[in-house]
């Protein structure tokens, strides 16, 4: 994995820039030279994910609506589209639609992402999982995925060497396990102000790391 550092910017300037919507290069920029990993571009997050998300696997993320935690996922999606790989985002949220200008402004290349709306994604989008066309598939708030569907996803992700991220609208619990997801992470908002000042990532499964605090302005 090749790493290249951006010039160091003083923190107070980075904060001011972030307030005006300019992303400061506070994080270490990583080149996606490893085709089996999907990076976020944030060194702390990539370290937490033990070198980025692995292709050929399924991960489950607990991020209830209204906490802004999908910004974390977008940092990964943005990097994948920047590498000209196709991403599929399946939106299962009630009544909400994606707002593409916000995605584009957050660094997602809209030419390389497709959106579908499906509450039962496996039932409706089964052919997607039978081809390695999309390198990253994000299932946002799917409704009641059955054990068979999880097994199917995990098997196909492995066979097609794609990564499937399942974003749940609730926090994950260690008591109710999921053997199919290699990585399970809860994203809790650290509340301070309207949007909160960041999130705390807490691994339920798949990484032995301590909880990670991410600042909103770094994402």
């Amino acid at each position, binding site marked *: 994995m090749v790493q290249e550092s951006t010039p160091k910017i003083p923190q107070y300037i980075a904060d001011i820039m972030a307030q*005006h*919507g300019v992303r400061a290069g506070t994080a270490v920029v990583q080149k996606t030279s490893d085709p089996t990993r999907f990076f976020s571009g944030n060194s702390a997050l990539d370290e937490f994910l033990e070198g980025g998300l692995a292709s050929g696997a399924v991960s489950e993320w607990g*991020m*209830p*609506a*209204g*906490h*802004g*935690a*999908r*910004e974390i996922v*977008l940092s990964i999606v943005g990097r994948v589209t920047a590498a000209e790989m*196709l991403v*599929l985002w399946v*939106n299962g*949220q009630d*009544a*909400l*639609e*994606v*707002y*593409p*200008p*916000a*995605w*584009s*402004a*957050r660094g997602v*290349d*809209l*030419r*390389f*992402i*497709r*959106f*579908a*709306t*499906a509450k039962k994604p496996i039932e*409706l*989008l089964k*052919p*997607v999982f039978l*081809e390695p*066309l999309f390198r990253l598939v994000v299932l946002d708030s799917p409704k009641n995925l059955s054990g068979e569907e999880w097994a199917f996803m995990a098997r196909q992700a492995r066979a097609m060497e794609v990564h499937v991220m399942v974003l749940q609208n609730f926090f994950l619990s260690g008591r109710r396990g999921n053997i199919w997801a290699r990585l399970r992470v809860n994203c809790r908002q650290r*509340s301070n*102000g*309207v*949007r*909160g000042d960041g999130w705390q990532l807490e691994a339920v499964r798949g990484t032995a790391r301590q909880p990670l605090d991410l600042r909103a302005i770094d994402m």
Partner: protein
Amino acid sequence: MFYLALSSDRPDFNPESLTPRFMLWQPAIWLLDLRPVWPYWCHQAGISGHKIQTNDQESLHAFLRQAISLLAGEGVRAVMDASPWRALMGLEVMRERGLDGFVFGHNPIGRNLVNEASWDIWFRLADEVASHWFGCGRERFNLQGFRRQAHQMEQGMERLGIRNPAALVEIPALAIRRRYGAALHDLWLWTANLHGDDESNLSIFPWVLWRQQESIQVKRHLDTPLLEWEHIETVLRDDVDRLCAQLDKQGVGRVLSLEWRVVFLDLSCLVIPIRFRHPHDLPAESPHHRTALLQACYAFEDAIPAAMGAAVDLGLYEKAIGSWELLVTEKIILPPILRDLFGSIMDSGEDRLQELENRLPVPLNAYEVTSNWIPEDGYCLRNPGNSSDTTTELMRTDDVRHPSLQALGRRRPLFVYPKPRVCPQPANHSRAWTFCERIMDKWWRSGIASSQGSMQRDYYMMRDEDERAVWVFKDGSGKWYVHGMYN
């Protein structure tokens, strides 16, 4: 630029090589609607669905010019425009001046052609449209009455000394309606392009689709009535195969839609349309026909519960299928000469994406950002080649001309409600609030109640009762709406 008016002397010219939707406007004059196959042609022209280049439009024009001259001969006369009416006007001017070639309506040459159309051409075309309206039975339309009103209008223009229709485009369409009736008003709307080229404006255009005499179809009388998809699928696969044999005989390249006419044991019929999002190469998937059978399955599962609900009570199996007919309703024929033109420009990744989309019951949407500050107008569905659209200015992802819109986008949420939802005025003003932006709606757009003072929107980010960060706005009249959520 979806409509093509074309005149060709070549007797073997078949418009079905370009699109399944076309009509014979006048002898040797064809009017083609390229919308169903537009992404396909863009793709063949080398404009990939996810890599729009700045010179795409030129590539597409060059490709279409070449394809049309191959199909219709060198002496072809063709005009492409966003409106069928203006395409026909341009073609008529070309014919009058003895010009040959292929002209695009949005180019200066194309615009000049339409602007220089005389009243003679306008009234001649108006009469042709009227004949088609009469033929397809437009409601409350009287051909004789129309001709009388058109004659009055012609006399009026002569008296006023107005040289051509372009000199009169400033006149409100309503004035034409008051003086000369609804039909001439509609024609005037197309001429002056007052409402843009939206679909509602063109919905009254008299399309009389051309149907080939010899249809491609297969019939099946079942030995045993069938109820379940698992059993139907095997038999249907054979029939799709039989259909392919006929398609091969006629040299059909791609299929856009099939019709599956099912007859139940109670002799009731059900027509199940099977549609493909992109022109589908049916014979190429022989013998498994995965794509066609998947689409048939989706259509069957959608249609059958409704048919069951309306079943006449004849017993347990009244809605078992006794026979069916499968026919091709929309197709394009690709002659070998055109296939040579395609060459090796096809991008396999894009092909695979189109094939995949054909197998899904839901669309895979791609979006483009437009340079528009109103949240609802800030994006549009992506359609390869639509960068020629003059009404929507698209913003490229790497565009640096609109840093303010990029900054706005960063402050807006990732998810919005399709229509803002009215919400009560937030009771507790001590909750965490952040002012985001103030925007003004487009006062010149019709249907916006400017008189009620709702033109202005003040957007805030706030927390609702469930501690979720929502994007709300207050309009000028003080009403509150929830527009999105910071998920």
